[in-house]
């Protein structure tokens, strides 16, 4: 019943309908077996509607690739309903695709709040998705939980000022931030691979690029690294000869960069053409290199690139909602999709884990004030580790961990082209370290 409403509303674009139909069918099966029994004893229908907004198509689609799988898993796990304070609620996920468009993200959020009358909003993956959704929820008094956007971009990017009281009432965010980047980077760079400590820093002139320029680079400089920053370039640049010449002249041996994926592909190939890759010993990327496909396109130039991971199958944490350990989650995804696991899988699962934990802790999940209050006090363990809003750096924010990891050529006979091994664990000693950082070299 709910599902069919859901689908009619999401009409318009054929590709979204294909996804929605697939998911809807799964959800509908669950709901139809559930409805008669629950009605029999519950009398009144108690339902919790959860909005889930993420980018499934468009340039950010890599982030949303595993979301249908995760939502399917959550729907199946919660098919018997959720018991809170003695009442059993039917849980309905209304998932929406922003098509990587911030304006659309905001519109979808408003539709879910005013049209579908949801009880809670979940949203994930990049400022272009999370910020507009969180803003819409803040304006409408809707409890909103989000992840996977450095928390500084979420907090300061939405108008909060350092040293002033938190301006938010309804939106909560858990993610790593600049400090986590700094810790894992310093741990990786001060390890076995010896360098001249000269860091080539390539960051674009966008929200994330300017955030690291302002907050991360000073920390690295203080830690004794000479950070060479030629200045921000515009996203979508076709040529990086100027920056490459600059880095060559300065004899940099470490690269740190925060580009959108296509820009890095171009930059790194040009760097190889113009001889920059030969002098590099550690190549540390962020924002790109998160998913196998983004490294595979580089061919032999992609081996031994390091990229900090916000989730990995070796994480010793399980999902309370699905009951799967991190390793089981990755295996289940690879089995069902035929694709290699990717880290957003764990992050999207953790968002649902944390959301359900907040609903349970509230005692009154349909009461928005109670739900928002329970988010603010939330302390729970999810797929990505501990999420603790009581000890966050600022109100309404909880930090999660980053673990150093490196892409290497997979062993012969592997199903996939690349392996992604953890190389350090300074932020959480419980996460196993699989290998040592290898110096970059063109294979």
């Amino acid at each position, binding site marked *: 019943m709910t599902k069919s409403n859901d689908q009619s509303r999401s009409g318009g674009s054929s590709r979204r309908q294909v996804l929605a139909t697939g998911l809807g069918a799964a959800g509908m099966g669950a709901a139809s077996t559930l409805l008669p029994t629950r009605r029999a004893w519950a009398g009144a229908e108690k339902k919790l509607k959860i909005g889930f907004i993420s980018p499934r198509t*468009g340039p950010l689609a890599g982030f949303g690739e595993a979301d249908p799988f995760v939502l399917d898993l959550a729907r199946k796990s919660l098919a018997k309903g959720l018991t809170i304070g003695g009442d059993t609620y039917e849980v309905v996920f209304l998932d929406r695709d922003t098509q990587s468009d911030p304006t659309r993200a905001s519109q979808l959020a408003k539709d879910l709040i005013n049209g579908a009358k949801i009880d809670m909003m979940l949203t994930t993956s990049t400022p272009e998705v999370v910020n507009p959704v969180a803003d819409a929820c803040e304006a409408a008094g809707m409890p909103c939980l989000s992840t996977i956007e450095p928390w500084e971009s979420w907090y300061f990017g939405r108008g909060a000022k350092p040293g002033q009281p938190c301006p938010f009432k309804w939106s909560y965010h858990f993610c790593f931030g600049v400090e986590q980047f700094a810790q894992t980077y310093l741990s990786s760079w001060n390890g076995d691979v010896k360098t001249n400590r000269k860091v080539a820093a390539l960051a674009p002139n966008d929200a994330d690029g300017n955030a690291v320029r302002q907050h991360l680079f000073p920390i690295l400089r203080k830690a004794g690294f000479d950070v060479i920053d*030629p200045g921000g370039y515009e996203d979508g640049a*076709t040529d990086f000869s100027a920056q490459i010449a600059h880095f060559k002249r300065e004899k940099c041996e470490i690269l740190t960069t925060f580009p959108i994926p296509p820009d890095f592909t171009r930059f790194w190939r040009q760097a190889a053409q113009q001889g920059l890759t030969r002098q590099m010993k550690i190549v540390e990327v962020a924002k790109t290199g998160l998913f196998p496909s983004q490294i595979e396109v580089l061919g032999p130039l992609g081996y031994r690139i390091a990229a900090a991971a916000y989730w990995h199958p070796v994480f010793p944490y399980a999902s309370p909602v699905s009951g799967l350990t991190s390793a089981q989650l990755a295996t289940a995804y690879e089995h069902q999709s035929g694709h290699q696991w990717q880290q957003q899988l764990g992050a999207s699962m953790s968002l649902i884990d944390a959301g359900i934990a907040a609903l349970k802790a509230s005692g009154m999940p349909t009461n928005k004030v109670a739900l928002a209050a329970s988010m603010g006090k939330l302390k729970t363990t999810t797929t990505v580790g501990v999420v603790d809003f009581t000890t966050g750096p600022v109100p309404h924010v909880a930090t999660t961990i980053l673990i150093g990891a490196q892409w290497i050529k997979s062993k012969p006979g592997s199903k996939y082209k690349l392996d992604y091994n953890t190389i350090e664990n300074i932020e959480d000693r419980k996460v196993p370290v699989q290998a040592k950082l290898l110096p970059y070299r063109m294979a």
Partner: protein
Amino acid sequence: MIWINQILQGILLGGYYALIAAGLSFLFGVMRVINLAHGSLAVLAAFLLLVIDHWLGISPFVGLLLMLPAMALVGVVFQLGVLERSLRGGVLIPLLATFGVSLLLDNILFALFGANTRSFASHIGTLSYGSWAINRSIDISQLDALIFATALGLLGGMHLLLTRSQLGRMIRATAIDADAAALSGIDPRRVRVAAAAMAMMMVGIAGAALGMRSSFEPYAGGAQLIYAFEAVVIGGTGSLWGTLIGGIVLGIAQNVGATINPHLSQISGHVVFLLVLVLRMRGAGGLLGDLRRKIRRQPMAPT
């Protein structure tokens, strides 16, 4: 030395822009159609090449031999199904129709191939990052050199074809006055189909260059369209050699801008584009006017 390197890299980049823009320029020169699906069609070509490569396990260069005829076929369908019909409706309709085609293509490609970023880099071995070192600060990328040579060859070849061959004369006649051409025994419809097929083969080469030089995904077309458009406008709409000059001007402007400050890279390209546009609208004389007149003397400019 850094400036020499930057200008040299800018010229090579310009060759890439010209190659990306060639099909757009040709279609505009011959049919007065601003093809907003240009970028998406280039991405379609790249995906075609990917499929051929995947099925037959051959190098993308051999794959071109199969992809280009396929693109020619796409051109025929595109001409008969979209352009021919929409051209009857005035100036605005082809613009809207090709925009629609681009949306349609992007989403079909997404439905078929998903959102993953692709590239031919791993299929062309060391060519994707190989280079010749001229001295300590100047390296010439082998792939960029190949792309530049291809742009020269393609634009030169098309120029020869238009000026020297029977088909070229027919295309020019149709472009200048379709009715008069029809009176002389030319079937403008067939000529346009042939021209569209040729344009799509040029788009096919652009798609291959895109896939080898950088990466593509179903929604990558839009960004390609912008640079192609700027190269065409800077060089003078409808002129093939002008497109090469336009591409090089754009490439040098971006690289010189980036050397002053990375912020200025794209801005300086856009500023040059706008300057040329303004000067052209004012019918400026002097150096630009001379250049423009030279470009206008090219056979494809029917103004």
